[in-house]
């Protein structure tokens, strides 16, 4: 590993750029003042209006205004003062160009790539669950979180990785922090990924259980992808756009076909219980991860990218045109009491843990230190690609929140409270919802299910069905009217399932590579990437690992989402803590201590929320919050021979005991691993501050760029269409 002792900001180039302090023209001042005013009005309406109906458009206005200001000013500040990208310096894409991994890519195309890689089901699901606390806390965190934490993390990680030839987060942790921190980071990344895959798969299981329409249309994505794979590989090689368009058309047909299947004799074949679906998904995950990529994974990925961009654009249009009214309270009672049925615990820290991806997502650090940095044409583009793409993702989260907040609260709780609380009939659910302080009549509940042609909407937790109902309301208001409601509902379910299954495919494969890499240190043959038994064994291990969590979630008597979603959120946010630790360490090591707050403050915040949440999950005496308190309660019940509801049998009681023990131990393990990384990083930072000369960094040395900039403006943004 060549290390240079050059300080990161040092540059052998003879001339420093002129002090970049461009004055704003009066016109742009006026424009930005108007944008700021608009955003402020949006926030003002949201904050001040009470007891009257507010249009969701104000949420959009507040969010977009804030994003624009943040992008124009804060991301510019980070670029100019902290990171100091230099467009005269060749990027790895230019220096190492090989036509495959490394190649300068148009910034707009790369933005699309990067966005498709980071956007997934997370920002759709988290905000829906967080709507339990009202729309205001969620909106505030999604917007503030992305501006000061999420987008900053993505941009800085992207920049650091770009300056290191596209090294992964794990490699950067090892080289910048140390062996112990690096090893802990690697294990944490792997373990966290397993939990993410398990919980995401659970969202799919909950969305498809007992829904023949949904199950059929999602199952059809497999033959469609196989067909696309053959078409692309054998019949019309390389015609990706054409193939994807055919795929999308077939997909829409599959959604329409689901409605016929539901009415036909095939309905029973596609009506599956959660447990059956778990085994289907596990089997599918294994097969998909060992099949050649061109057969299933690659075509699915194209399909998912098209659907992602198309549906998100459609949703944005829908929200603006339909302008639905927000029905939930701005701040609900559950925000302060912490007794909400969807997820337990108080606003701090659990709101932040639940929203996760739409505001700050640790997983993005893996993408930002993977393919994207190897494709950047000019250094200054990290701002648009890193910061900009994350703002877009945050906007997706805002729209998911709107979809949930425009539902009748009674219906929202009837769909999202645990099954144990709601029972199985419309009457019992209606009563349970009344017990929570909301109203929905049994008739309304049945009608709502009928409108989207589902057997039931009771206890369809996981976020996806709720979002789908919300989206179907919004879409049918704009396109097709109420007759199209069922179509749009299943369209939304399909769209989320497609995202998640693509993540599961790709994640299993990435996990398998990581496992092979780790085990390869112990036993060489298993590390070989083309030794089939090694591939099968490692794939099976990874699938079994997430399959375990999926199964335990699907069969959990207390409601899998209720139990596992906090674990998912904590895991994701801890990954962000690792990424922000690496960023802060590099800033300190490279002599930028005075700007270390840029990543240091979000780091402190994310540590505060994850460690508080983790602490409560481990030590809280409230059995609804603390895993071990829950374990004790049910273990005592077993000793006394009692069955405590919502458990229905002693077997259920044992399941609860096992699950809460596993979950509690895992959280403790995660916190420990992240603590190791941070302590190691703190030692390095102290050493860096005390050292009279800058510590060596692993940044690659300066090489002059030979790609011309179109114009050397005050704000150079290169990357012309060629």
């Amino acid at each position, binding site marked *: 590993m060549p290390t240079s002792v050059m300080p990161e900001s040092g540059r052998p180039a003879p001339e420093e750029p002129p002090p970049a302090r461009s004055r704003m023209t009066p016109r742009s001042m006026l424009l930005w003042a108007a944008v700021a005013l608009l955003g402020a009005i949006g926030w003002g309406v949201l904050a001040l209006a009470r007891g009257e109906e507010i249009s969701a458009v104000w949420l959009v206005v507040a969010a977009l205004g804030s994003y624009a200001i943040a992008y124009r000013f804060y991301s510019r500040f980070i670029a100019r003062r902290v990171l100091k990208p230099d467009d005269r310096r060749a990027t790895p894409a230019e220096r190492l160009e090989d036509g495959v991994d490394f190649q300068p890519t148009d910034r707009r195309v790369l933005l699309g790539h990067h966005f498709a890689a980071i956007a997934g089901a997370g920002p759709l699901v988290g905000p829906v669950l967080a709507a339990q606390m009202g729309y205001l806390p969620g909106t505030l965190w999604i917007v503030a979180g992305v501006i000061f934490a999420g987008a900053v993390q993505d941009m800085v990680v992207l920049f650091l990785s770009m300056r290191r030839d596209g090294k992964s987060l794990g490699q950067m942790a090892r080289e910048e922090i140390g062996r112990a921190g690096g090893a802990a980071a690697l294990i944490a990344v792997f373990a966290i990924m397993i939990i993410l895959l398990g919980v995401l798969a659970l969202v799919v299981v909950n969305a498809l259980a007992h829904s023949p329409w949904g199950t059929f249309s999602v199952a059809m994505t497999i033959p469609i992808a196989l067909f696309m794979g053959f078409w692309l590989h054998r019949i019309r090689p390389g015609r990706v756009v054409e193939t994807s368009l055919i795929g999308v058309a077939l997909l829409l047909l599959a959604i329409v076909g689901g409605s016929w299947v539901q009415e036909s004799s095939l309905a029973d074949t596609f009506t599956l219980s959660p447990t059956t679906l778990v085994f289907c998904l596990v089997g599918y995950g294994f097969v998909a991860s060992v099949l050649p990529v061109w057969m299933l994974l690659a075509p699915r990925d194209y399909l998912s990218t098209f659907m992602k961009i198309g549906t998100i654009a459609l949703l944005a249009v829908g929200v603006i045109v339909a302008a639905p009214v927000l029905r939930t309270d701005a701040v609900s009672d559950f925000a302060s009491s912490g007794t909400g049925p969807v997820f337990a615990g108080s606003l701090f820290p659990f709101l932040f843990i639940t929203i996760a991806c739409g505001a700050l997502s640790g997983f*993005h650090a893996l993408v930002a230190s993977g393919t994207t940095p190897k494709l950047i044409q000019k250094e200054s583009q990290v701002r648009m690609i890193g910061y900009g793409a994350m703002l877009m993702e945050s906007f997706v989260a805002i729209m998911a929140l709107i979809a949930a907040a425009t539902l009748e609260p009674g219906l929202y709780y009837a769909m999202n409270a645990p099954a144990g609380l709601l029972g199985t009939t419309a009457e019992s659910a209606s009563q349970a919802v009344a017990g929570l302080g909301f109203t929905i009549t049994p008739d309304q509940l049945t009608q709502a299910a009928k409108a989207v042609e589902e057997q039931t909407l009771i206890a369809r937790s996981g976020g996806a069905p709720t979002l789908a109902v919300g989206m179907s309301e919004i879409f049918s208001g704009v396109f097709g009217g109420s007759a199209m409601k069922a179509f749009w509902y299943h369209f939304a379910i399909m769209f989320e399932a497609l995202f998640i299954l693509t993540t599961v495919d790709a994640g299993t494969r*990435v996990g398998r590579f990581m496992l092979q890499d780790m085990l390869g240190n112990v036993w060489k043959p298993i590390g070989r990437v083309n030794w089939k038994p090694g591939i099968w064994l490692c794939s099976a291990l990874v699938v079994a690992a997430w399959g375990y969590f999926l199964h335990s979630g699907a069969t959990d008597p207390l409601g899998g989402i209720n139990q596992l979603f906090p674990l998912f959120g904590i895991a994701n946010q801890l990954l962000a803590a690792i990424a922000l630790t690496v960023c802060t360490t590099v800033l300190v090591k490279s002599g930028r201590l005075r700007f270390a707050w840029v990543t240091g403050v979000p780091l402190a915040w994310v540590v505060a929320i994850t460690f508080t949440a983790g602490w409560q999950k481990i030590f809280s005496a409230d059995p609804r919050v603390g895993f071990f308190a829950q374990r004790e309660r049910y273990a005592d019940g077993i000793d006394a021979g009692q069955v405590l509801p919502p458990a229905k049998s002693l077997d259920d009681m044992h399941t609860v005991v096992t699950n809460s023990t596993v979950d509690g131990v895992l959280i403790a393990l995660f916190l420990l691993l992240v603590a190791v990384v941070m302590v190691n990083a703190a030692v390095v930072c102290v050493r860096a501050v005390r050292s009279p000369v800058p510590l060596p960094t692993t940044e690659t040395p300066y090489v002059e760029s030979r790609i011309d900039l179109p114009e050397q403006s005050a704000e150079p943004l290169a990357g012309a269409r060629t």
Partner: protein
Amino acid sequence: MSVRRWARAVRWYLRELTGEAQYDRYCERHLRHHPLAPVPTPREYEALRARHREDHPQSRCC
């Protein structure tokens, strides 16, 4: 902007985004570096790309 220019821009973007345009660039590069060797056919290139993807899994986010 005229409809045709829009259509061209959309087509360009989709071809770039999906990597379809990759092949043209690959051929151009191949000719630059190995002017005498024949360029791979689209089919061969697709196989190359698939093999590369096989060894470089990319995580999709949650």
